[in-house]
């Protein structure tokens, strides 16, 4: 497990500089315009892209076939991808948290509570995306999964955009709150299920 994660970090080293550059740019942008949502969205997107990038490297060099000839179990390969993506996302969320903290501190743009909730929601959305996307990546490989991913990201966005036009009665504050409190459990359950599914998919894979 450790070896696999070290390998992913090394493989991303080159990209890491570009990623950090992008992050710095959006961080600067968000502080200048006192708008954190752009940065937050970028971070979530980048974190979702990270496992995709490492898996693309793996595919290109046929690393998995080689890794499986070593004392590495199939499920460890799957778990390492999840761990890597989740840790990367948490780091991203912490960065968003700190930056928005700074914005709150120096301006009156947002309330502390509002900021915390926003950061957490973004973190949660990122995890949900990971839970959906990783099994697709393991099943179809990076090449095909790319298009499927577009759809996966596109449909929810469409739905959210359609909501105002649909005359749906918005749920009461209580229900939203309840959903908010339950969401960590829901996300955790979703991730567990997603890992289980990915392992089952990966165990059947032939190299």
């Amino acid at each position, binding site marked *: 497990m450790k070896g696999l994660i070290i390998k992913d970090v*090394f493989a991303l080293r080159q990209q890491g500089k570009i990623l950090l550059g992008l992050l710095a740019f959006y961080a600067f942008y968000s502080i200048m315009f006192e708008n954190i949502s752009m940065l937050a969205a970028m971070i979530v997107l980048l974190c979702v892209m990270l496992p995709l990038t490492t898996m693309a490297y793996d595919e290109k060099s046929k690393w998995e076939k080689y890794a499986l000839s070593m004392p590495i*179990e199939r499920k460890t390969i799957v778990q390492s991808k999840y761990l890597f993506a989740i840790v990367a996302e948490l780091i991203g969320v912490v960065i968003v948290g700190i930056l928005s903290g700074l914005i709150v501190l120096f301006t009156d743009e947002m309330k502390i509570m509002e900021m915390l909730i926003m950061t957490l929601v973004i973190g949660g959305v990122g995890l949900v995306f990971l839970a959906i996307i990783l099994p697709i990546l393991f099943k179809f490989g990076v090449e095909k999964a790319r298009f499927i991913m577009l759809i996966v990201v596109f449909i929810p966005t469409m739905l959210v955009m359609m909501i105002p036009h649909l005359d749906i009665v918005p749920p009461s504050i209580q229900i939203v709150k309840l959903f908010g409190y339950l969401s960590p459990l829901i996300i955790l359950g979703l991730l567990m299920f997603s890992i289980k599914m990915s392992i089952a998919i990966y165990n059947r894979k032939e190299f």
Partner: protein
Amino acid sequence: MENVLEVKNLSKDYEGFHLQNVSFSLPKGCIMGLIGENGAGKSTTIKLLLNLIHRDGGDIQIFSKCNLTHEKAIKEELGVVLDESNFPDNLCARDIDLVMKSVYAKWDQNVFSSYLRRFALPDRKRVKDYSKGMKMKLSIAVALSHHPRFLILDEATSGLDPMVREEILDIFLEFIQDEEHSILISSHIISDLEKIADYITFIHKGKVMFSEVKDSLLEDYGILKCTHTEFDQLDKELIIGCRKNQFGVEALVRRKKLQGKFLIDSAGIEDIMLFHSRGAGR
């Protein structure tokens, strides 16, 4: 003698290709060459040994242990080289050292760096800037640096120039000096295997045609040279494969079975393989 590898009735069905009842065994301390044309089933067999693909039948024992139930323990003591370098492009040898340290329990950094020096592999240069020979040497260095007892090599020498191949074969011969060590090597460069192998297993269209000691193969088989009329009078049971031209016939035969006065040349492994597949195609 104890076997390091035992394969029994191994089968795998693909669309248009079937690996059928492949059985062979490799005694400890020996080198076995796996030969056969492209697509004959060599790589499929090796993938099955490593559980990279799922078998449809049969049984594999490595170090006298089932390779499904003791997979991890077996792989700790296995050195594997596949037909290409499988490291992500932008890693360097130093990175690989760090990665492998957490992968193999018995990874030996000193052994690894001594191989890097011996192969003149720069440890800071990225793998993507290595030449093909260097990549292969790197894979071999990795395969040897965790004190393995058994090397499995899939086309490890193909695509390399004769000098590098010679160097690599020497490493293998060095490895085999320890009588606890064994090697299974697949290749379609027969001359390499002829140099180092003790056993030859020939796979043709998913079936094992023979799996024998190399020297007895060379003793047993011969190439009969005769005229068409002489050939027509022979018992066809004796002919394994033949090649006819307007001047006469060349046929692979088992020397002992052929009675009478004939001109029989010695047959190399390559001849034996070629005539076998020709015969099977009749």
